[in-house]
């Protein structure tokens, strides 16, 4: 634990932080563009060339807006809500392996902020705290719509976390580790987990949509019924934080999906053309981001294709379909892992 090591980690933290904010910022722009393109429109194209300064303009607008805190609200919790949302959204990126490692002057510089050996548990812990941001915000607003939105959000997130966790258990059984670095490293070549865990991947994907409160599971903030859901009373940058946290969550979810099921930074056949390890690591980061961007696009694609679920449908899907399915998936995975022993038992 030298000083240079600490400085390196600090710089890495800063870079990851800035990148996730930057990606989230441009996700808002991408969302508007994707929405427009899928509806045969052009989307924002006035601020700068192709409208690329639109996120900045939106940010400035958010800051300039009058900040309203309702008189009857609990002021401390009212401010804590969006802060907590933002904090948890930014915390998850710590354990994600963005690449293998760079070797400069014989010293290894891993491209992961920290390799916790219980990485998956950490992820689940932080994601679970995320629901507090929404609940506290909805509760503190002292508004029926906000409260209903917050209740929906919390029940939705809690019920889908179960299925998500069970899907991950099957993955952990396959890989035999809780460290994200290990999981990513095991998937070199074509050994991506999605080919061994297609059902688990599907369950995880659906739950990721529900966890990030994105369509078709955006019940906590459905405009048509609940005005704005948990953020009805919010204005100015506090509202901006909530919206921004959703986009950061989308980015992180995409990163987690690619790490868990799509080989993370691995790209098959890449090693045949590139031999320099540093170059390979850099290209790995590039491919990681390519996968992430694809999944961000996928999130948006789904949002502008599917209509919103009804609340009872949402709960039915979560409890009656996804959880039994993920349990079956665990059993199937167990059978698959022990197939030699089972065959041996019957054949002798």
């Amino acid at each position, binding site marked *: 634990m030298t000083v240079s090591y600490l400085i390196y980690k600090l710089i890495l933290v800063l870079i990851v932080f800035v990148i996730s904010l930057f990606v989230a910022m441009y996700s808002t722009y991408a969302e508007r563009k*994707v929405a*427009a*393109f*899928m*509806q*045969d*429109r*052009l989307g924002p*194209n006035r601020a700068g060339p192709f409208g690329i300064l639109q996120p900045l303009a939106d940010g400035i607008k958010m800051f300039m807006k009058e900040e309203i805190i309702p008189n009857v609200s609990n002021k401390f919790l009212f401010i804590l809500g969006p802060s907590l949302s933002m904090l948890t959204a930014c915390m998850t990126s710590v354990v994600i392996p963005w690449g293998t490692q760079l070797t400069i002057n014989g010293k290894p510089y891993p491209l992961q902020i920290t390799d916790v050996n219980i990485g998956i548990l950490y992820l689940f812990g932080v994601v679970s705290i995320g629901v507090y941001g929404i609940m506290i915000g909805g509760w503190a607003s002292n508004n029926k719509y906000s409260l209903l939105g917050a209740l929906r959000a919390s029940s939705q997130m809690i019920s889908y976390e179960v299925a998500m966790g069970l899907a991950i258990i099957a993955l952990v059984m396959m890989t035999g580790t809780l460290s994200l670095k290990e999981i990513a490293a095991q998937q070199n070549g074509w050994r991506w987990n999605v080919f061994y865990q297609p059902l688990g991947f599907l369950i995880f994907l659906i739950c990721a949509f529900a966890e990030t409160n994105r369509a078709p599971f955006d019940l906590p903030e459905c405009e048509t019924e609940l005005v704005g859901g948990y953020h009805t009373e919010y204005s100015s940058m506090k509202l901006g934080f909530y919206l921004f946290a959703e986009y950061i969550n989308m980015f992180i979810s995409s990163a987690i999906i690619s790490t868990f099921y799509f080989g993370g930074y691995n790209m098959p056949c890449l090693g045949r053309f590139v031999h320099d390890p540093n170059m390979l690591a850099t290209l790995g980061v590039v491919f990681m981001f390519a996968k992430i961007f694809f999944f961000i696009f996928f999130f948006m*694609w*789904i949002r*502008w*294709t*599917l209509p919103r679920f009804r609340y009872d449908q949402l709960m039915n899907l979560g409890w009656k379909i996804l959880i039994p399915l993920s349990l079956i998936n665990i059993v199937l995975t167990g059978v698959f892992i022990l197939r030699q022993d089972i065959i041996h038992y019957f054949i002798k």
Partner: protein
Amino acid sequence: MLTNRSKIVAKKELSLAEKLYFPAILAGMAITLKHFFTKKVTINYPEQKREHSKVYRGQHVLKRDEIGAERCTACGLCALACPAEAITMTASERKPGEEKLYREEKYASVYEINMLRCIFCGDCEEACPKEAIFLTDRIIPSNYERGGFVFGKDILVEPVNDRVDVSLRQTEEVREFKKNKNYAHNI
């Protein structure tokens, strides 16, 4: 049952493939992706303008004749024909020496069209016996105040050096139509 057109609505149970929803979801995603790459129908308005039809009815113009004298004689037929009562005018007598300015002895000293009332039906243009008022393909610009939409002669009368082309609305057929005494407004 009397008309034999009633249909019995059956609430069919979904098949397993339909219950899984995935075929339907994939079909929906294919549709949205197809639209992602299709040509967009939006045009960038101030830079590109959608072409109007040839006989688009936009902002009015009060025409001058060949030597630049105003054609309008303040007869009031346009105001009478106007279903929205958007046109008002004040008639005045031409003074000696103003022959180059006004075509006939009587002219409109004030001629106002309230563009908020106007419905751009073109009846004023049909009613005019002097070929003085026409609708053009120009769009009424926006304004912050109601008063700004009452267009007076300063806006309506065409400049001497910058004539407005109304040949499309002044065809032989139109002239014939205006002479036809069978129509009430031409008597």
